[in-house]
């Protein structure tokens, strides 16, 4: 029963007006861009697959997924610490790892739901309801939870031992993850996004949609990584990051920054 109450309270926190508004904006943003692009009268020979792939890869995977993972996963710990409410949770007879995982589960639900809605709306706008079956939507919806788990676990772990995890998380997400996949050779293999793109490739568009691609800086050449390797690596990262997060959270002392100062 404690798990249910923790999950419920964490979910409830995620649907507060500010967070919900931000999630809704992020969910409709790719679709709005796609709509604007479709309404652009100068584009007649639109390749729908390429347009969808470019927007899905750059905006949903490269932006919405990563941003929500940073904000929601780091918030699992920092919100309680900075809000000083963590003392209520850590003095109850519930093992710390359960508190962490219950709250993380709520964050995951929010990330997966928002990114899935973003993908669905994007596919609807790009293909239209009748041609939705031609899209890669089903594949993307299947891989987004893997991405949410991988990024979420990593940022959760960061939040368990850093005092300012949001800043570090954002730097990692939009610095490291945006830059490393562009490196030549094997360097790109030290980025999570490369493995996600191996599972859900979003190749660069051709023709007029290439303009869009150049506009969106985060679309990259697909890495030569097999599905199997990608699955193994992502699974290992998820397990390792979650394990480290649990161990750290179970042993670390948590005090708000002003209390430490």
């Amino acid at each position: 029963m404690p798990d249910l109450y923790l999950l419920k309270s964490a979910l409830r926190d995620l649907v507060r007006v500010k967070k919900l508004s931000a999630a809704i904006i992020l969910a409709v943003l790719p679709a709005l861009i796609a709509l604007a692009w479709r309404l652009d009268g100068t584009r007649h020979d639109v390749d729908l697959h390429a347009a969808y792939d470019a927007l899905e890869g750059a905006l949903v995977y490269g932006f919405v997924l990563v941003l929500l993972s940073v904000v929601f996963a780091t918030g699992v710990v920092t919100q309680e610490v900075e809000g000083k409410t963590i003392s209520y949770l850590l003095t109850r007879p519930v093992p710390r790892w359960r508190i962490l995982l219950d709250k993380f589960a709520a964050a995951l639900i929010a990330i997966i739901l928002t990114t899935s809605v973003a993908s669905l709306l994007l596919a609807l706008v790009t293909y239209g309801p009748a041609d939705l079956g031609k899209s890669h939507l089903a594949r993307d919806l299947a891989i987004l939870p893997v991405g949410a788990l991988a990024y979420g676990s990593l940022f959760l772990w960061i939040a368990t031992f850093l005092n300012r995890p949001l800043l570090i998380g954002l730097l990692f997400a939009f610095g490291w993850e945006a830059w490393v996949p562009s490196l030549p050779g094997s360097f790109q293999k030290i980025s999570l996004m490369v493995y996600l793109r191996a599972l859900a490739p979003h190749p660069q568009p051709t023709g007029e949609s290439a303009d869009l691609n150049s506009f969106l800086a985060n679309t990259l050449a697909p890495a030569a990584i097999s599905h199997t390797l990608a699955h193994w690596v992502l699974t290992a990262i998820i397990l390792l990051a979650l394990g480290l997060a649990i161990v750290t959270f179970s042993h670390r002392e948590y005090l708000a920054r002003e209390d430490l100062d």
Partner: protein
Amino acid sequence: MITLDHASRWYGQVIGINDVTCQITTGITALLGPNGAGKSTLMRLVTGQLRPTTGRVTVFDRKPFANPAVFRKLGYCPEIEASYDDMTGREFVTMLAALGGVGSNRLKDQVAETLQQVGMAENAERKIGGYSKGMRQRIKLAQCIVHDPDVLILDEPLNGLDPVGRRDMAAILTRLAASGKCILVSSHILYEVEALTHNILLIHRGRLLAQGNVHQIRSLIDAHPHRISITAEDPRRLAHHLLDLPYVLSVRFDAARAGWLEIETRSPEAFYGHFPDLVAAANCPISSFESPDNNLEAVFRYLVGE
């Protein structure tokens, strides 16, 4: 129930508590000290949020840090005002009761009983964000006692309460203590805790200065030279009469402050008893009367020899 054995806690170079040894058993014990004395650190050690840097802290003979077996028997009311502001009082107490191990079959009734007990039943459906400071204190107390713990740790629970709230809080704590609970209450105001208990731990700059009965602490206040400032129409005439009292040690004037004088006494209680009669007999009206030493800070300064 609670034992600290040469327990120290440092935050880097900053001292939290230093070499504290004490035992706290059933009944109410007040942890008394000025702000920054180390009260909250001691409470965080006892409630298993912090580990001692050196020494040992145990609750029911177990180390409390991240220990659910200890938390089953422990209730903690933090000093912080922060809470889950979007929840109603009832939701807040219900969630923490569930986390505290109250079974689903008893949950609703136990929460209702506790809210009634702390006087929050009528406001239980309001969001905590809209609560007054006094209501927050009451709802924090509710979450602390809802799972019927044997040990209650309350960090400044009387802060922000009006006189009625203080009286109610004292009544609740006294009742809980009478039922065999071990209650540790922190405060920085002596008169606040005098109404609660006679059993006091005096802490200052991380050190446990004294442990014992509140009367002993009071006598510490009374034993050291005690200053009393008076503003009178004719301070020199008043001084003449005051010097006739055997327990007045000295009288001081200040040329910069008209009508002001300060006396020093070793028997403030006797002085306070005779002073009204003396003023009346001397026909020497006074306009103010205060003692800069009649507070906890003065006791601490005295005890640490400053």
